């Protein structure tokens, strides 16, 4: 079974016309030709390849190694270290972060419901 790094390297080699030797754990993404738009595209590919759903927070990936750790954390259900905080007060644990997101979604859903059906549900 291929490792996370090997699978990621295959994506990078295919999408950016690199050779396998170009890509190491220490490789800087920018130096491989992967700018901020490229990272956005890479995240899309990671969702497909590893069958994970990315958390909504912005992510700060600079090297191939950071991307590998990011993917490994997602696959294991842990909060990836590369995530930037959603806001200053939230818990650093991934489970808690998901909880924060779920609560925010629940509040948003209630607001949408109240807007769509103002007589049935009133926002206090």
């Amino acid at each position: 079974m291929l490792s996370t790094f090997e699978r990621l390297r295959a994506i990078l080699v295919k999408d950016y016309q690199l050779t396998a030797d170009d890509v190491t754990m220490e490789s800087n993404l920018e130096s491989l030709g992967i700018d901020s738009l490229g990272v956005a595209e890479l995240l899309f590919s990671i969702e497909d390849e590893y069958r994970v759903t990315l958390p909504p927070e912005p992510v700060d990936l600079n090297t191939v190694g950071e991307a590998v750790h990011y993917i490994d954390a997602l696959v294991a259900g842990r909060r990836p270290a590369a995530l930037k905080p959603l806001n200053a007060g939230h818990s650093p644990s991934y489970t808690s972060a998901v909880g924060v997101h779920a609560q925010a979604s629940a509040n948003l859903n209630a607001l949408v419901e109240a807007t769509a059906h103002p007589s049935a549900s009133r926002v206090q």
Partner: protein
Amino acid sequence: MTRLRVAVTGMGVVSPLGDSAQAAFDAAVSGVSGVALLNTPFAHRLAAPLAASAPFDPTVHFDSRQFRMLDRVSQFALVAAKQAMAQAACIQADERGGYQPERCGVFVGTGMGGTHTIDEGYHSLYGEDSDRVKPFTVLMGMYNAPAAWIGIEHGLLGPNLTYTTACSSSAVAIGEAWLRVSSGCLDMAVAGGAEAPLSFGSLKAWEALHTLAAVDVEQPSASCKPFSKNRSGMVLGEGAAMLVLELWDAATARGARIYGEVVGYGLSTDAGHITRPSVSGQAAAMRSALHSAQLVATAIDAVNAHGTGTTANDATETAALKALFGAHAHLVPISATKALHGHMLGATGALECVLSIMAMQHCVALPTMHLDSADLECDLDYVPNEARRGVCVRTMLSNSFAFGGTNAVLVLRGGDQ
């Protein structure tokens, strides 16, 4: 006001008639149609599965990295602009032929922008119940992507503008570029249009308007029949055409080959009905174009008609030509090349501009194909079914009229006159 002369020094084409200006012109002269039955997975769900598709292989022009950033409309635009710039050879790698990049602009018309990207995104969200779309959806779908990519590719730092006035978009783009170059605001401009409207969603939207032609079952390639009594509508086409416009004196000073000249541009708005064309509006645009060129109507030797093949347009355009030209209308050869390349919407005016310039160069009046049934309402000389060679055509009008009522007309001359 006194205007500076503006030369056309480069022309590029991606079209249903071929991937160069010369190929498209040769097909138009020979009456070879780019219209065919669609061979796509969704074709059976169309009432009239017809289109004029461009035989275009993007892998020849773009590596996979570029390809993933470019909607089909931007691919067309980039390839056509590259051809035009190569032909003009006005900007070398290290030397810009005396042009400051800040004085070089890009003017592109497109009616529908990145339709394939938008279609794919909707399919993903609604058809596949996905919660995400591709990361470059905004960048590929936005209307100014074709112009932006041309600016990036060629390092043109002046105005980078996109015009979307439906079927007159690229005539407007060329006209607006001409205004800036002829007034001395710019030294050079890449101007034209691009359109890629053959996505399922777009075809269905056009089908819903009931303006598309029925299939000619005996000869599907002849389904678009401008000015013919049995015309039933237009056929959508795809592609791009780009021109390099330069100050005439600068172009001649550097020894550039001059293919043609833009000498006038007129605009009018119907401000009446969102789709129904207006005789007075179309005539006003032609009159305005003649005025800007400081020409009288009898100076016009030929016309490239808007000639869509719809019942409403062709009768209205004929009446507008008569209103403008009077008796001279019957003496002017009128060509409707959409019978062959289809209606390329925001790109069609630019392709017809290219074909008109080449027709003048080659002393030929292009044929209006599939005109097999006379219509009392359309009784002018449409050059039916066969090119007319040896015709001395010095000055032409190229008409582009649009849903929304924006009528745009270019006045063109052949080169080196």
